């Protein structure tokens, strides 16, 4: 019985991120994402937008790790508000990113909010 309980606990742990997340996160690996529960109502629409647009080119795991660790996972460079804006501009200019300036601004605001939450 004890073993089953332990296994169940480990299974639950394996589903959730192994990192200590101040911002709620679900899944792991390529399915890792921010938990919709942790997103305030005012940002929900932007969050949905982000889920559609950002995953056209990369998984949400990359974004989650950057928010959680404060570092861009590939370059290792700081992922702070200044960097978020730079990534936003990069995505604005990226051919076929299919995002206009307002959408970019909204996503940048959401990421800034997540950075603040993660820092708490």
């Amino acid at each position: 019985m004890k073993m089953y309980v332990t296994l169940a606990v480990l299974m639950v742990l394996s589903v959730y991120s192994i990192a200590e997340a101040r911002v709620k996160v679900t899944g792991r690996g390529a399915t890792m994402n921010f938990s919709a529960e942790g997103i305030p109502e005012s940002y929900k629409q932007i969050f949905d937008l982000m889920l559609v647009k950002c995953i056209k080119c990369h998984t949400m795991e990359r974004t989650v790790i950057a928010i959680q660790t404060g570092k861009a996972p590939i370059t290792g460079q700081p992922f702070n508000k200044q960097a978020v804006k730079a990534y936003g501009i990069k995505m604005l200019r990226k051919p076929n990113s299919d995002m206009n300036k307002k959408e970019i601004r909204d996503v940048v605001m959401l990421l800034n909010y997540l950075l603040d939450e993660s820092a708490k």
Partner: protein
Amino acid sequence: MKFKCEYILASAIIISLVFLSGTSHAIPAFSRANKVECSTCHTIFPELNEYGEAFLKNSYVYIGKGKKASAGIPKAAPAAVEAKPAKPTPAPTADSAVQGAGDPELLIKLKAGKMTSGDIPLTPSAPASLSEADSVNSVTGGEVKPEWIDLAGVPEQLPISFTANLNGSYNRKAVNEFDFSTRALKLNAGGNFKGKAGFFGTYLVYTENAAGITNTGQTPTNMTGKNDIGEFFLIWRHALEIPINIKMGRFQPKLGLWKTNNKLSITNPYATYSYTVGISPFKLEQPQDAVEANMIFANRLFIAGGVVNRKEQNTKDWYIHSSIKFGGADYHANEPEIDLNQEESILDFLTLTIGGYGYVGTNGDPNTVVGMTPRQNDYYRAGADIDLLYKLFRLKLSGVLGNDDNPALTYVQPAVKSYAAAIEGDYTIFRNLIGSLRFEYVDDGVNMYRRFIPAFAYSPMENLRVSAEYKYEYGISRNSTGAAEIDNQIGTLGVTFSF
């Protein structure tokens, strides 16, 4: 006991699932080394986007890597263990300095097997906490590399990849109208050593050679018509801690804005870079044995200059290049400053790069043989390129003029002036489908022709592309016996993949 074993086994399986799951994306050397997808640097490979250009100009050091993370303050990952403050250590005696004994107290502990990790003294260079250690590691991209790799400076992955081409063509005028047996296999190697030196090389493993076929019933298994090494060079990055890179080896001298393979079309190089005059083999894209110095100045100006050596010739060729970029990411891949609170403007999306170059050289007979007057050709090329990018549109303009004083290597032919120009428009239809149309004009003194080259490149996967191209070439060829018409129409369907 049995319960304990099952518990450990189950835990191990679950932990393994948590840590080892995930897919690997096996694509070439740069991608593997930097753990990025091809589209980071390419539109559809091998054509580069502006981040690929920045990577190239930064001697194959990934953008952002190699910089100290001092611009921002990375949030510290929760540090499980804070390192202890440095223990005061007794001043080393002269004896210990000679013997390298260090702290005698520690030595006694070490010999007695009683030394713990907390006893290890911190040197000024050692990070004071794990978060600081992370910051130090971010110099190499935030990855903690094994110490031996860091010390040896070798790339963690073997920096080798292959590119294969399989092409089929249709030429109405050829005896064999449909030819689907052209193929090539190229080995590529490239990377950097601790951000201090970059290297790149290509080796043509196999390419089709249709010459000398005597029996068409034979499967051509050994028809390699290759030229072995294409490029092979080393770059001393930021030589002597100044922002100048020294490149040496065999490579295409930096002249035009785009390297030979930096284009959508697989089979048709830009005429401005590839035309030749008379029997002189010189063309701008020709790999040469050279030494080049280049640098990025004020983030948006790139300057290069070099000297080319030819075997059995005691005069050198010289060249210079300069290009400047307005708008878009700069040559260090820093994004432009755009106010996201303002309305969209054309300037938000406009990128203009202008480049100019000059090349002066001599080729022909060896001039190192005593008592022999060599037939030599002195020549020069001067050209300019423009690259304009706006959202999904890209426009490339290229023009060059040249002069060869003896391109036929005789003593009678007069000097020849040559002109070539190309204009190409690209449109990104989808992220993985780009269409282009190019027009070229060449007057090399003997031949005068025009080309129209429409092409589509489609990339169902980032490391695989399918391209469909058509070349319509027409003009006249002037020679001693009169003029002949040039009329070529060739369609090509090709598949290229890298792995």
